[in-house]
């Protein structure tokens, strides 16, 4: 591991291997790490164990099928898995459609730029550290908001999480993407 390597860049290499080589060993590693977290997330959102198990398997199968859609310049693997799990939850527990924004996709020839991707993954880790360092009460509030048992709140304003850095990083990726699509 070089200094630049982070846990998150390692996960995104695993996803790349699933995408290009259909690598079951890499997938097994992703599964061992993320499936139990997705299951716990779904149970905290109100799913019973059987439904949570089924949905977690589904989420991991989606990761396999959609590995080519993962963009390391715009999200960490954990964030991407979270969005898949969230959508599965809306579908399974609320039985709602989820309106999704129009997607911005790179052209088929695009190779993610390593530096940009690494910087984004590093900032995601920093965000994780910042979240873990929040006072217990605030951290619980945020968790509850994401588990879905709080519908509205001013939480976002109160936490002081370093969202600006992530935002400017993503903004940069969007700018580059727009430029490339011209």
């Amino acid at each position, binding site marked *: 591991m070089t200094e630049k390597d982070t846990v998150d860049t390692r996960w995104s290499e695993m996803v790349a291997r699933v995408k290009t080589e259909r690598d*079951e060993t890499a997938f*097994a590693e992703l*599964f061992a790490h993320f*499936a*139990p*977290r997705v299951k*716990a*997330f779904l*149970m*905290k959102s109100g799913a019973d164990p059987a439904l*949570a*198990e089924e949905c977690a*398997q589904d989420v*991991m*199968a989606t990761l396999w*099928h959609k590995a080519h*859609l993962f963009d390391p310049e715009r*999200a*960490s693997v*954990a*964030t*991407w898995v*979270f*969005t898949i*799990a*969230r959508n599965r939850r*809306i579908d399974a527990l609320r039985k*709602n*459609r*989820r*309106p*999704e*924004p*129009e997607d911005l*996709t790179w052209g088929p020839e695009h190779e993610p730029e390593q530096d940009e991707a690494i910087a984004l993954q590093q900032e*995601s880790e920093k*965000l*994780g550290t910042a*979240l*873990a360092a929040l006072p217990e009460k605030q951290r619980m509030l945020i*968790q509850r*908001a*994401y*588990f*879905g048992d709080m*519908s509205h*709140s*001013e*939480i*976002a304003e109160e936490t002081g*999480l370093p*969202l600006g850095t*992530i*935002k*400017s990083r*993503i*903004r940069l990726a*969007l*700018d580059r993407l*727009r430029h490339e699509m011209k």
Partner: protein
Amino acid sequence: MNMTIKHHLTDPLLMAYAAGNLPEAFGLVVATHVSMCDECRARLASFEAVGGAVLEETDTCEMAEDSFAATMKRISDVPEEERITAPATTAEDALLPKPLREYVGGDIDAVEWKSVGGRVRQAILPTSKDASVRLLYIPAGVAVPDHGHRGTELTLVLQGAFEDEADVFGPGDVEVANEELEHTPVAAPGHDCICLAATDAPLRFSGLIPRLAQPFLGI
């Protein structure tokens, strides 16, 4: 991309959408605005990153014994051709952003408008019942009947502009109104105004007649 958007979504709305907790009707307004606004797209991504961090920090929960094998079976059960997602088709000249086209079943010419009086027309879009969303067509210079709110109302401009006591709202701008705001939106002269409006409570019109008519209008 629209560089002139001045009125953006609030943090609590973006966070609730990122967390998957908004009523479908509000979600449609958020998804439509984000489709038009890079600023909010980037902010949304940062709130999703918080979700990723929360997931990473969550206690784990033991998987069923055969879980991995069952998942591999799920994977191989999907026929190869269904695994390839169709390329996103962007209709360059469409007025309505994609999430909205999916609810309308086409672009603006596919909207089934119904008159609500005063030359104002609306089309209610099908969503879950916890909130409602409709397209509004307000001819240039015409006012929407005076109304207050019992809940939250989001109004996103798709074409033209409207003014109310608070400000001027142009294409891509979204107004977030709560119960305190008693306002009279007027479509700016020149262009007919088309907006997408969501509310989590029935609108309460100030005049008696509109109030009686409300159950029939479905708003």
